[in-house]
């Protein structure tokens, strides 16, 4: 599986993402600097967490309009599996690849802690190795993870099984406890929690691994 991790100025989970991908899949991803928009064809694209462009104006707003994202949008819309974690999720909503928006946490504080999630749909490219309804523990670390979309959009997401992960506790005020969603085609996942931070017992658990094995097992 050939994968790329996109690096924006201010990304800071890019290395963590690369380490997790390499540890789980055995293959080192290519790091793609935001100005290298004509990067090689890959099987999988990851948008890491961090504070791209300082998260100024709105989280993910400026990266979503960067050159590299024009290319990522083209490829993702064309079906290349794409994962956005934390800031990556914010970027995906800002590009419109995923619906809704991520607003300031209801508690207004940055929150970094392990949270319980349920796997709402185990029939996606990203969750196939989990079981439907499985409870997992994965950390969050964000200031703006409060998922918002209008009711129609929310209903549509639920009806189409596009809510991939849901918080089992109140973390940030997200509508309907949404922690991660996919696009209609199922090749794009955005989520606020950080599975790449939970891939070995030394870090507090391995519940994040299956997300990466799911992708690897489906993509080979």
């Amino acid at each position: 599986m050939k994968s790329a991790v996109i690096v924006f100025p201010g990304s800071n989970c890019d290395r963590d993402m690369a380490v997790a991908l390499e540890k789980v899949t055995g293959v080192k991803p290519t790091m793609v600097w935001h100005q290298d928009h004509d990067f090689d064809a890959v099987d999988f694209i990851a948008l890491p967490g961090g504070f791209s462009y300082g998260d100024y104006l709105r989280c993910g707003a400026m990266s979503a309009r960067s050159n590299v994202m024009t290319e990522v949008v083209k490829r993702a819309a064309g079906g290349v599996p794409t994962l956005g974690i934390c800031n990556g999720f914010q970027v995906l909503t800002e590009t419109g690849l995923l619906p809704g928006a991520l607003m300031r946490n209801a508690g207004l504080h940055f929150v970094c802690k392990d949270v319980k999630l349920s796997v709402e749909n185990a029939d996606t490219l990203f969750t196939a190795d989990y079981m439907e309804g499985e409870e997992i523990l994965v950390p969050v670390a964000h200031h703006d993870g409060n998922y918002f979309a209008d009711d129609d959009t929310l209903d549509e997401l639920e009806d189409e099984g596009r809510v991939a992960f849901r918080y089992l506790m109140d973390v940030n005020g997200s509508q309907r406890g949404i922690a991660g969603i996919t696009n209609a085609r199922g090749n794009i996942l955005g989520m606020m929690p950080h599975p790449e931070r939970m891939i070995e017992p030394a870090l507090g658990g391995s519940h994040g691994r299956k997300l990466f094995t799911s992708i690897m097992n489906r993509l080979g």
Partner: protein
Amino acid sequence: MKARIHVTLKNGVLDPQGKAIEHALGNLGFGGVDAARQGKYIELDLVETDRDAAHASVDEMCRKLLANTVIENYSIELE
């Protein structure tokens, strides 16, 4: 020319910052605040001198970057 842009949350979008302000004002003993909303205020210094051209250009800036129209409205004043 100067553009003054207000970006505010759409009706129906929950505003955690506004809520927090309401709450904090209450705690500080300021009664009589029925509602608070927080938005952004952006000022741009433009080279453009033609009002219509400036308005069109700022409007495009808002749609493309300054506002997230999924959740936000914007308004533009030129001076």
